[in-house]
Structures are given as structure tokens and as C-alpha cells.
């Protein structure tokens, strides 16, 4: 079967692929989006849906902040089932050492125009009475949460309004050299093909340094008001950056539905998607340490998902060296929801040969090729 000729074929209908398709279609390109299964069924469904500005590196900050402003621009158009809620993030400091980190974060964000507020112990207690007494925290008020599967569907519907084709249900067996072939025999040709397949992206582009990083989440029944902000322990930064061992961190999120999402865990080398009771137990015990009242709350579901992790913790956005037609939009690890919109814009800029609003070099896949060339 002939899938037809397009300007761009986007492989992967997760939030990143959806954002790319949305941006391409808006700019008048003829787009096809293909997914082996459904819209937003991978890490998009498994993740928390946290739109958060991060400061691990200057490049990470630039991308997350830029993308956050894009979400804010889109906010008034989002349907209610996207559940966009600017609840803010509170980075919770357990002790004085972490309080020092709060102050330096405050300074870093302030210098770059992101409003934040340092909370002492009593004011944190007032904002989040269910936390056990803590040293304090940092409130980042422009951070938000949303329900990502519906956000991906919204972006794809917008792309479709601009003429994009959505093809679900058959996996891509081969992509590159200006074409994508599906298991059902259909074949798409295009000037550009985009690998936005998340944790599956290395299967489609061999040599890609993207690893699966497994995560667990638990969701509770409805307890409106139990927490009011996304709460993340500052120790999260330490555990999230530990590249080689399993880690858990206190990371909870209020949903519009009144439910509480409880995370988080990070594991390398765990390929099966089953819930791992021991990790779950560690993760929930950590959450109970920060928020003892959670112990008595009813949990209704647990699940797992796979983040697409790169060695330098930055996504891959741009052309894949060696194939002029092949572009990457993958490796977003735990920040795919936040950075999806910026990814779409940066990629569309590159395809159009336009200069982007932020420097693109840190995200170009060619940086990996350099590592390979020098390291081996």
C-alpha cells in the first residue's frame, strides 16, 4: 500500500511527536503521523505531566523555560480534559543543607526572570499542611501540571485541522532515506522523517544512544485539597542524576480530579514493564516519610513506563548525521511533556532553515557523533 507523499513523516504519536506534527502542520507542511498503537500511549501516558523549569544545566534551563512559555501561550486554547493547572512546584528542603540549595536556586531563577519564592518552615506548613515539618522550600509558581494523553490528542487534532494524516495501529519497521515503512506493508515517502519514538527510538535508528529508564507511579482515589502544589524533594536532583543505580524520590502531584499522583522511581536495565513490588515499596515509603498522612490514603492503581534517557540528559533535536532526511526528536527522559512544544518549534525552524529563539547546539544529535568519534 502506498501511504503517499508528504513533506514530513513523524514516527511516534506521543506528546513529542504530536507537538512536532502540530508545529509542522501549522507552518503549512504536509504531515503524516504514524504510531504502532495509539495517541499518547507510551511515556506520555505513563508520566506525571509536569511542566517544570529545571536548572541542571544552562541548556536544560533554556529549553524547559522556553517550552513553558509556549505552553502558557497555548493555555487558553486547551480543552478542559487536558486539565492544565498552574499549581506551581515546591522544591522541598528537608534540612539546612538543602535550604542552602533553595537559596542558590532562587538566585539562579531570579537572574533569569523566573519568579520564585523562598518558603521558611512555617510558610511551607501553611501551604502544604500534610507535609511533615520541613526546613522550607522553593515555590516556583509558573510551573504547571496537565493530563498528557489528552494534550497529545489535542495537538494532533490541531495538526489534522491543518491537513495532517494520522495512521495508527501498525509499527514502523524501517525509517530513513526519505521514507518510512510500516509492518502492514504501507510505505510513506517524504522529504523529512522524524524519529519521535521515545524509548523505542534506538530500534528505528541504530546507533542512537538512548536508553530505557523505567519509572513507577501510583495514583490515589479523590482527595481534593490533600496537596496543592507539585511537591518534589530537593534530594530528587541527586537521585535523578545518579545514572547507574535504582533510585526513588518523593515527588507528588495534585490532579484536577482531586487525585494524588505519587512518584517517583528511576531504574536502568529493567526491561520488563511489570510493577516491581520492591521499588514500589521503597517509593511509597519515601513518600510516607515526607507526608505521613499518605499512608492511610487509598491507592487505586500503579503502573510503569520507560523514559528515553540520553547520556548527557539533554534531548536529541535535529538532523541525524549521515542521513539528510532523518531528524530526531527523542531522548527527553522525564521532561518530554515540558519540552515537547519547544522541540516542535526548534525542529520546524531547522527544517525551514530558520534561526530559533534559543541556541540549538546543545540539543543537536551531532554532539553524540562527536562523542563517538572521540571516544572510540
Amino acid at each position, binding site marked *: 500500500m502506498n501511504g503517499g507523499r508528504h513533506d514530513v513523516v513523524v514516527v511516534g504519536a506521543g506528546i513529542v511527536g504530536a507537538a512536532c506534527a502540530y508545529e509542522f502542520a501549522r507552518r503549512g507542511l504536509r504531515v503524516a503521523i504514524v504510531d504502532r*498503537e*495509539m*495517541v*499518547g*500511549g507510551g511515556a506520555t*501516558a505513563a508520566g506525571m505531566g509536569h511542566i517544570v523549569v529545571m536548572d541542571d544545566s544552562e541548556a536544560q534551563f533554556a529549553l524547559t523555560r522556553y517550552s513553558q512559555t509556549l505552553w502558557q501561550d497555548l493555555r487558553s486554547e486547551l480543552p478542559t*480534559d487536558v486539565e492544565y493547572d498552574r499549581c506551581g512546584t515546591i522544591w522541598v528542603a528537608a534540612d539546612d543543607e538543602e535550604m542552602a540549595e533553595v537559596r542558590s536556586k532562587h538566585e539562579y531563577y531570579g537572574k533569569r526572570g523566573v519568579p520564585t519564592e523562598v518558603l521558611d518552615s512555617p510558610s511551607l506548613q501553611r501551604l502544604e*499542611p*500534610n507535609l*511533615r515539618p520541613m526546613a522550607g522550600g522553593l515555590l516556583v509558581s509558573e510551573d504547571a501540571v496537565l493530563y498528557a*494523553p*489528552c494534550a497529545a*490528542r489535542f495537538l494532533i487534532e490541531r495538526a489534522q485541522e491543518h491537513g495532517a494524516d494520522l495512521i*495508527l*495501529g501498525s509499527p514502523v519497521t524501517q525509517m530513513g532515506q526519505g521514507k518510512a515503512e510500516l509492518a502492514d506493508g504501507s510505505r510513506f515517502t517524504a522529504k523529512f522523517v522524524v524519529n519521535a519514538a521515545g524509548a523505542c527510538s534506538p530500534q528505528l535508528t541504530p546507533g542512537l544512544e538512548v536508553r530505557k529508564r523505567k519509572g513507577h507511579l*501510583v495514583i*490515589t*482515589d*479523590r*482527595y*481534593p*485539597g*490533600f496537596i496543592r502544589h507539585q511537591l518534589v524533594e530537593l534530594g530528587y536532583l541527586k537521585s535523578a542524576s545518579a545514572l547507574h543505580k535504582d533510585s526513588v524520590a518523593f515527588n507528588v502531584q495534585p490532579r484536577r480530579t*482531586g487525585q494524588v499522583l*505519587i512518584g517517583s522511581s528511576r531504574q536502568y536495565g529493567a526491561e520488563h514493564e*511489570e*510493577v516491581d*513490588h*520492591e521499588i*514500589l*515499596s*521503597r517509593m*511509597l*515509603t519515601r*513518600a*510516607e516519610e515526607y507526608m*505521613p*498522612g*499518605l*499512608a*492511610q*490514603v*487509598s*491507592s*487505586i*492503581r*500503579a*503502573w510503569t513506563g520507560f523514559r528515553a534517557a540520553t547520556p548527557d540528559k539533554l534531548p536529541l533535536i535535529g538532523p541525524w548525521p549521515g542521513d539528510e532526511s532523518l531528524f530526531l526528536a527523542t531522548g527527553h527522559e522525564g521532561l518530554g511533556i515540558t519540552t515537547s512544544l519547544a522541540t516542535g518549534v526548534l525542529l520546524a525552524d531547522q527544517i525551514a532553515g530558520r534561526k530559533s529563539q534559543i541556541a540549538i547546539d546543545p540539543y543537536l544529535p551531532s554532539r553524540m557523533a562527536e562523542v563517538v568519534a572521540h571516544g572510540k
Partner: protein
Amino acid sequence: MSAVVERCARQEWKSGPMSREVCHQFEVLVVGGGPAGLAAAARAAEASATVGIVDDNPKLGGQIWRGADQDAAGSDASMWLARLKARGVAVICGASVFDLPRPRVLLAEAETAVHVLAYSKLILATGARERFLPFLGWTLQNVIGVGGLQAMVKSGLPIRGRRVVISGTGPLLPAVAAHLRERGAEIMVICEQASWTNLLGFGCSLLQQPGKIRQGLRLSRQLAGVKFLTNAWVVSAHGGTALEYAVIRSKGETKAIPCDYLACGFHLVPNLELPMLLGCRIRNGCVEVDDLQQTAVPNILCAGEPTGVGGVELSIVEGEIAGLAAVGRVDEAKRRFRERAKHRAFAHALDHAFRLRHELSSLPSPDTVVCRCEDVRYSRLDRYASWRSAKLHTRCGMGPCQGRVCGPAVQFLFNWNSESVRPPILPVRVESLAVSASGPRSEYAEVLGGSK
């Protein structure tokens, strides 16, 4: 703000984990205290095994023998309960199995404890539940399940003088109608969706089973004068806050029937969550077992409705075989095969006679709620190709019942199946899910006394 939030604001709410862990070790652990589970536990215990039985209800008996401890001596239920007691089977009631933290260990949550249940052999007797089909007004107050209404009446709901319409399919309809009538209810009509020819065929298949015939004759005496319609089903329920009347369709015509209760049940579906979590092979919606009730997973047996809905007699004999097989009494188990074969024929006849007619899938209108927990209406669902994608985009089946109610409905309406089961298989406290069951436990608590 909800009461929960108010409670959260109080200091004692913040005290953290409250329940204790209680560890047990059994040679044979039985999950489910209905007829199959009781028979399995009794047979295994009579062969001198250390046996435990766990059930989420406050007392043993399952759905069909609910309140069996009140029954007169001499009933089947009281006989099995006495056999359990005589052999000191450890009874853990009010505890729901929700996870398999490591091989041969299950976790069960009770009100103030988490039971850590280690076993050598496991017998699953998890029973079945009613299938509901959505129609206009099915979420009104006093529209409930047939079995649900019976259970409520057994627990003291006053039914005398109340008008009841019963609709759905299967032998449960007349059985429950007779029970309600005995308690003084006025049965307005029983609507059986199956055709008269199907029922006739079913009746003929019972000719080999004098017991069933006797039950049938007794039922028909008890229901003398009650209108029993075949080829008939409820199309809608109406009322303000509570139910006022039901509209039924029979012989191509619709008719409004005033009533206080509308009891619906479209036969039973096996409870497969735990068998699936354990990795048992499922075929045609049932747990696959061999002659000795052994599942595809070594040391895990299964008996009763999960292997195919077949009623109480089949459940008992399957339970007996599983209990005997679990303790190596294979020859004795084999002597029960003929009995089982007879009752299996009944199960097949049930399946055939009460197959749901196609028209029922057009009962919901676009506006009809399909998922009650998340308030998802029919019109939002029919565009999806799988239950998972519908779940993700509409939240259908994502509420606290975890799709137990709408799952069997969407299976019928859209042919969607649930692909996976993950722990917790039912809602539990965070502290229960946080129980770490890793590492060698040096000591297990004494097995609980049999009478508890």
C-alpha cells in the same frame, strides 16, 4: 471540602502507617470462601495439610452462601463450614488479596493489618461477579444488581410490600425472585432476554440431573402467578432522584412498569484479576486448568466460577478435586471426575442458553453513562479501537472500581478486553502497598486458630 480533607487537617491523621503486618505460612492457601474455596480447604485439611483460607467478605460463604453461618444445621453450607472448623483451618476474613510481592507470597489488606501469606500450594476460588449492561437510567437509585439486591435483603433491607422488576439473564433471576417473594416483595415481572426455545433446550439438558429439576420445580411453585417473560429486557429506568418505573420491551412492544426496585443481572463473569496477576493462562474468558484443576502456573490450582461459570454444585466438586490434588491425593480426586463432568455439561448448557442477544448492545443511547466512577458516556467511547486508548483519553474504567463494573459491559458492547492486570488488583491503603515483603523472613507467626 471533603471529610477526608478535614481529617487530614487533624494531627492524628499524620501519624503515618497504622496497620501491622501479620505473617502466615501455609501448605495450602485458598483464596475465596465460597463453595469452591470451602470444599477445597476442607478436603486439603482433612488430608492433614496446614490450610488457610482468605476472603474479602466479613464471613465465609461467598456470594451464594452469604450468611451461611446463620443457616440451619444440615444445609450444604453449614456442613462445609463444620468440616473446616473440625480440621482447624485458619480463617482470614475481611482481607483482600491485592499483590504478589514475590513468588509464593500474597499480600492481603484487612482493616488494621496487612497479611503476608506464604504458601506451598495455592488454590484460587475467586468466584464471579454480575455483569451489568448500561441503559438509560441504570445509574438511578434503586437500580441494582440481582445478586446485589439479594445480598442487601439478606443483610436486612426491608423488602416487604416493595415492587420489584427483575431483568437480565440466567438462572439467578428466578432464584432471586423467589427469595425476594418469600420475604414479602411483590415481583412485578421477570424479563429473561433469552428466547423460549433456548430455555426449553436448557430445560432438556437438565433431564440428566434430577437435583436441578427438583430445584426448578420448587422455584416454579414459589413463583406461581409471577409474570415470566422470555425475549424480554429492560430498555430504560425513570424517576426523579429515585426510581419510579422501568420500561421493558417484549414481543416488539415497550411497556412501563411502576416499581420501587429494578434488579438487573446479565449473567456472571469470572473474577480473573488475581489469576491474571499470577500469570495463569486465560482462555475464552476463563482460567485454563487441567483435569486436576491445575493452572498453567506450577503449584497454583483453580476451582469454581473462574474456570467457567457453572453454579454451586460444579464449584463444590471442582473445589474438592483441587483440594485433594493440592495434597497429592490424586486417586481420590479422580474418583470425583464423573461428578464434575455431569455438572460441566450443565455449565455448557448455561453458556449456550443465556448467551447475550445482539440487540442488547444497542441499549445505550449516546448519553448513557457507561463508566459510573468517572461519568463517561457512551458517545465518547465508540471512536476508540481498544479499551486502553479509551481509558487513557476518556478515563473510562479508571475509577476506584478499576473497571470491574464497566469492564464486562465494554467487553460486550465494543469487544474490548483488558490486556493486563497490575498490583494493587483493588484499591488499598498506600501503607499496604508499601509493605516490603522482601528478603528471608526468619520467623512466621503461628498459624491463626481455626475459629477466628
